[in-house]
């Protein structure tokens, strides 16, 4: 079973969110271990650019693995304040350490998040 850390929030599209879930709050976003395992070896990540606005539940990039291309969704609405540049050279960090060095982008939230799942609910979703 893929791990589901208790201290994170999750989207149904298999992203995790870490940080202050309020307008003005800054959060870090990545994909879950479950999603990384399903995709296989990730070889390329197209993340949104710093300054771009993203909308909860909408596509904001792509993840490419040896097997397939998968869309990357934003779990929150806001402005991109950072992307993980190291993934350009080490996209496999998403497989090796999805909740750590495999983080993908950071967002400053502009709209109150809703519909995120806690670890128990996300665990049920992927069981």
């Amino acid at each position, binding site marked *: 079973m893929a791990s589901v850390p208790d201290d994170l929030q999750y989207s149904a599209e298999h992203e995790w969110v870490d940080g202050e879930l309020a307008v003005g709050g800054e959060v870090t976003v990545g994909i879950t271990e479950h999603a990384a395992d399903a995709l*296989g070896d990730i070889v390329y990540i197209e993340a949104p650019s710093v300054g771009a606005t993203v909308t909860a539940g909408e596509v904001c990039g*792509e993840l490419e693995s040896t*097997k397939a291309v998968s869309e990357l969704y934003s779990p929150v609405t806001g402005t991109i304040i950072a992307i993980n540049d190291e993934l350009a050279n080490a996209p496999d960090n998403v497989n090796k350490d999805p909740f750590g060095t495999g983080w993908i982008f950071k967002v400053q939230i502009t709209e109150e998040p809703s519909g995120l799942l806690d670890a128990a609910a996300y665990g049920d979703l992927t069981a």
Partner: protein
Amino acid sequence: MCRDGPTLPLHSEHVALGATLVDFAGWEMPVRYTGDIAEHTAVRTSAGLFDLSHMGEIAVRGADAVPFLEYALVGRMGAMGLGRAKYTMICAPDGGVIDDLVVYRRDWDHFVIVANASNKDVVLAELKERSAGFDVGIADESAGVALIAVQGPAAEAIVTEMTARDADNIASLPYYAATNVVLTGDVHAFVARTGYTGEDGFELFVSAEDAPEVWRLALAVGGERIRPCGLSARDTLRLEAGMPLYGQELTRATTPFDAGLGRVIAFGTEANSRGDFVGRAALEAARDREPSRVLVGLVGDGRRSPRTGYAVTDAGGSVIGEVTSGAPSPTLGRPIGMAYVDKGFGEQGTQVLIDVRGRGEPMTVTALPLYKRAQ
């Protein structure tokens, strides 16, 4: 991830190895055990172990086995020696490909046809329908047969070590030939030097009940030299090797000529005549007209890979083809693919673009295969 598909003889082995299982043609199959790239690389550098038990095995026996197969399939089966294998196709009357097949000659009047998992029932029904008037029996033996492949440069050493009694038979087995072997543990196997990875390798047909023992034997004998490999690695290996996949490069809407595989059709010559076969008239017509599109290889310099269904365009953005398969090539370290393109764009070195979400990724048209092992 797992659906309630029918289970195959090696299912519990895959679960024990921690495989990620997916539904494939109704079967629950391992897509990977550890990582796609490591599994792919193992086959290129040492050896990989594959469970192909989802493939269909159809036996044809009887006095008319040869004339029947020569009528039902596009190749010449009568010329095959005992213990030989042949790559062939079954086509519709309009020349479209129903499936690509490997046929093994086990005896003068006994052949085994290996069909793609997703097509087995269609192939079986077609064969039965085409057998009217021929003295043959056609039997679906898929449920009782497991197919295990050992592929890679270390495959010969490993399979040789899996049999004390028949080691010499394995070492001397030519490519596209097969022989009966007794493996360690007194397990009977029909072992063929065939595969779908672009490497030297063997495919072992064993009974479903012996399959777990043979699987574990290959892992025990192979040790550090062998790694279990899933469907994901199998797909990137066959793509590098330029081997067509049914449903992608080959479909009911393509003839063997479209895929550059006209050579599999034996029309016969004056000196070496051949009777009628299903699809003959349509395939003769297809032979005599230039195909409007050709199957080519693609290699890119960027990070994005061509993927099935992506449009191929010229520099001006006009659509000139469609990608049938693509992936980042673990061996070449670059994105690769196969595509049907308009004939004028089929020359090696032609620059084309792949439409990735509205952005043109440059690709170079390249001859197939994209990878060829050192002989």
